[in-house]
């Protein structure tokens, strides 16, 4: 079975983003970019399935700017076999990405598509579910365990009340949650090897997909600031403050 893993280039999780003074967006110049952390988990899961002999090939795809090439190289260094880069200018919404992925799925015919549950830039949490809808496939979202058999996959999902398990017919879409696995760091030899792995360059036009955004961002602002309060010296002082503020009786 072939596994397709979409990966997104995003602002690194450790960067504290700043809103631009003109409210047109957030500051992206000279900011560290990385693979979306959930996508690292997806790549790791696919590579592990290949190492177990369940998957035969891991194909990674990124939709984004030319620099998303680096994100694909990271995935290839983790053990993916080849990449597809769909270059777009400007932000691409989840729906458009899902449409592009649906076309790629039609060409590649994977048994599983494993995506991150959300990207930590737009926090949309949509692409996997949308892709499953467009393909008419089952979806196992927010996965903390993925167990494929010959024609089904069992997915344990992190839900509000705890965990639930669903069984999906293959082919299917899975989106990953934090506790599915701990992604590996690529070793230096594997980083070198990844340089020789193929990446196909594509554009949305190659797939006949209209990626015109449906949403316009009118402005981006700072959230209401919360000012630091005070340090209390003792437990008694804390209790007194809480009683005075009325939150405890």
């Amino acid at each position, binding site marked *: 079975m072939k596994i397709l893993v979409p990966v997104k280039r995003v602002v690194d999780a450790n960067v504290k983003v700043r809103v631009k003074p003109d409210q047109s967006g957030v500051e992206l110049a000279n900011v560290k970019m990385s693979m979306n952390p959930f996508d690292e988990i997806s790549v790791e899961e696919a590579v592990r399935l290949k190492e177990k002999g369940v998957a035969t090939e891991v194909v990674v795809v990124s939709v984004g700017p030319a620099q998303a090439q680096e994100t694909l190289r990271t995935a290839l260094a983790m053990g993916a076999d080849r990449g597809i880069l769909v270059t777009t200018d400007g932000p691409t919404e989840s729906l458009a990405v899902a449409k592009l992925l649906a076309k790629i799925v039609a060409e590649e015919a994977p048994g599983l598509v494993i995506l991150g549950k959300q990207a930590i830039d737009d926090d949309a949490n*949509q692409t996997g579910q949308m892709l*499953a*809808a467009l393909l008419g496939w089952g979806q196992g979202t927010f996965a903390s365990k993925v167990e494929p058999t010959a024609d089904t996959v069992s997915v344990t999902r992190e839900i509000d009340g705890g965990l639930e398990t669903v069984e999906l017919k293959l082919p299917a879409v899975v989106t990953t949650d934090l506790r599915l696995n701990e992604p590996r760091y690529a070793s230096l030899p594997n980083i070198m090897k990844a340089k020789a792995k193929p990446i196909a360059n594509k554009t949305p036009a190659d797939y006949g997909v209209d990626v015109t955004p449906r*949403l316009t961002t009118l402005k981006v602002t700072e959230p209401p600031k919360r000012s*630091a309060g005070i340090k209390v010296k003792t437990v008694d002082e804390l209790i007194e403050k809480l009683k005075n503020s009325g939150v405890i009786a």
Partner: protein
Amino acid sequence: MSVLVLAEHDNASLKDATLNAVTAAKALAGFAGGDVHVLVAGKGAQAAADAAAKIDGVAKVLLADDAAYGDALAENVAPLIAGLLAGYDALVAPATSRGKNIAPRVAALADVAQISEILSVEAADTFTRPIYAGNAIATVKSADAKKVITVRGTAFPKAAATGGSAAVEAVSGSGDAGLSSFKGAELTVSARPELTGAKIIVSGGRALGSGEAFTQYIDPLADKLGAAVGASRAAVDAGYVPNDYQVGQTGKIVAPELYVAIGISGAIQHLAGMKDSKVIVAINKDEEAPIFQVADYGLVGDLFTLVPELTSKL
């Protein structure tokens, strides 16, 4: 505008997240004087539908009662909603794990770009929503004829659960799509309040060091305060507490009257889930910990002595 709200329920009862979503739906419907309807898709869900009919401001309840909808499988429920959407201008779903699973599938079927986790309705086509773990708020305008929206519960007050008397109308969809089946659930059972609805939350972090320490230090304080128990990702990853305790960007978003963070450093991703709490208390031995930058009251010291003292003095 006529707006359809996806109810959050367990067949027997309606969940409060529905009430927050109804408030957002009312704001949206208000722009053109339309109605708010609620869809209860489930199995043996008459009781949940009856509860939805009593919500203030709800004009009609649609009840899709079918074995295929009993476990809220997105593969089965999304086509039902996409079909019903023909008669509405918008779908509003709570941004719960269920709403997040189903709504985007509906959006794609309807060829609509979803607007996730809205914080406010600015106009019939304009909304605010958090991006970058809530470090920025985007105001977005949708060009789609229909809207598919999920609602951040903490941003909208609950609609009154009583006062309405809507009719309940049976609807049906195509049932089982044959793509997925429900195998079972391991739900966390607790006598404590639910995290997202709790007035007080006591959360523990990596510093606790074990599940036993949660039981020994966090639970008694929570019980004294009638509080729910939450946790940082580090505490969940380490297996001290179940996954559904996680507060943060990729866990639960909470805004209680009082949030007590114990042995939690205050990473961006954790703050994203709790910084709208009314009063924040932090107990941490590192006086430089970022959590103190958002805490109203900070107590610097060892949690293993301070927390038992606090519990005993309350």
